[in-house]
């Protein structure tokens, strides 16, 4: 299974390292080569320097035929553009987009993008640590509203549960960044 990850930050590089370790074909993109230092020492995936919002760069990265596409840079808008290229232009079946602005994240979920929101996750996590009730859904991927996801080549959005691809562990690689225990448990 080929996974393309845009943004080699802590989350992107960490996830890439784990997936490569599990034997998946991983391509990580970042505009800065220094960012690849975050990859695990024995990382045997591909690390490509390039702009993940540029169609020709994604082409070179093997976007055609990829199974998963994860847009995890620090820029909400860059993630949004990259994710929509992945879905519309390359027809990648599973696309996930990190959007930290809650309003934008909701707006794009209704536009058919699966989004993940660090802000809401952290508010929820800290709140629960303080003994407050959990905010329903805050720790999860915001799965796209299927009713308006028309035109999407996305098979996954048709599944309201947003089930991960069958060859990924059901414990959910995409949900892993939610808590540290989960992401360590994946190793």
């Amino acid at each position, binding site marked *: 299974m080929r996974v393309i990850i845009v943004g080699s930050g802590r989350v992107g590089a960490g996830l890439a390292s784990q997936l490569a370790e599990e034997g998946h074909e991983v391509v990580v993109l970042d505009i800065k080569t220094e960012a690849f230092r975050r990859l695990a020492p024995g990382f045997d995936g591909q690390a490509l320097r390039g702009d993940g*919002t*540029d169609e020709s760069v994604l082409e070179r990265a093997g976007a055609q035929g990829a199974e998963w596409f994860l847009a995890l840079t620090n*820029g909400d*808008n860059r993630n949004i*553009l990259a994710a929509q290229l992945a879905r519309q232009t390359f027809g990648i079946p599973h696309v996930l987009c990190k959007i930290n*602005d809650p309003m934008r994240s909701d707006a794009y979920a209704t536009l058919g993008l699966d989004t993940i929101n660090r802000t809401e996750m952290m508010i929820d996590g800290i709140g629960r640590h303080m003994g407050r009730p959990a905010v329903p859904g805050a720790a999860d991927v915001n799965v796209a509203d299927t009713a308006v996801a028309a035109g999407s080549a996305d098979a996954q959005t048709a599944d309201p549960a947003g089930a991960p691809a069958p060859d990924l562990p059901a414990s959910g690689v995409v949900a892993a960044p939610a808590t540290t225990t989960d992401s360590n448990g994946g190793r």
Partner: protein
Amino acid sequence: MFVIVVGGGRVGFYLTKELLAEGHEIVLMEKDPRSAEQIRDELGAVVVNRDGSEGMHLAEAGANRAAIVAAVTGDDADNLVVCQMAKHHFDVPRTIARVNNPRNEILFRNLGVDEIISPTRMVLAAIEQDIPVHELLHLANLEGGELELLEAQIAEDSPALGRRPADIDLPDGCTLFVVIREDRAQSVRPETIFQEGDKVIAISRTECENDLRMQLIGHVPEIASA
């Protein structure tokens, strides 16, 4: 008319100036505080130091009553998000995006941006018009990029030279409709015979472009267009 302009670079600045002079109601959103301050000195209170891709700030700027939102920053990703938020979250009737990477044009159109302005494409077109190469010139995208308006010049080695439209094996979904000869345009008729120097204007489905090229020009491009 109430127009929100996002991006206070050269384009946004002069655009706002012109629109104000025409008496329109404008808000110019610029996220960089220093740039915002600079242009506020000249343009006044219409300039707000806000990020136009943040939903909350678009709401504050009055996006729900804007007739037009024009996103003209130097960043394609920002421009896309501004237009999509304006369109889908605030129901703005008309959105305009500046696109720097020409390959983003079709994507932006498919994602609902009403009007795409591509400075790169414009300069490229101006340059291509001046080069007398026997190439297929791309004039415009139609129907959201599914169709293209193309111009082909008939050269001495063109397979179409001396032939009539019926003798040319055109791909499905492709029409030759005008021939420009000695600076005069005429419709392509069944009896038209293509001559050297003719410029043929065609509408083609994007995927038929190469077949059309083979029929009218006779060879594939030597340099792939980037």
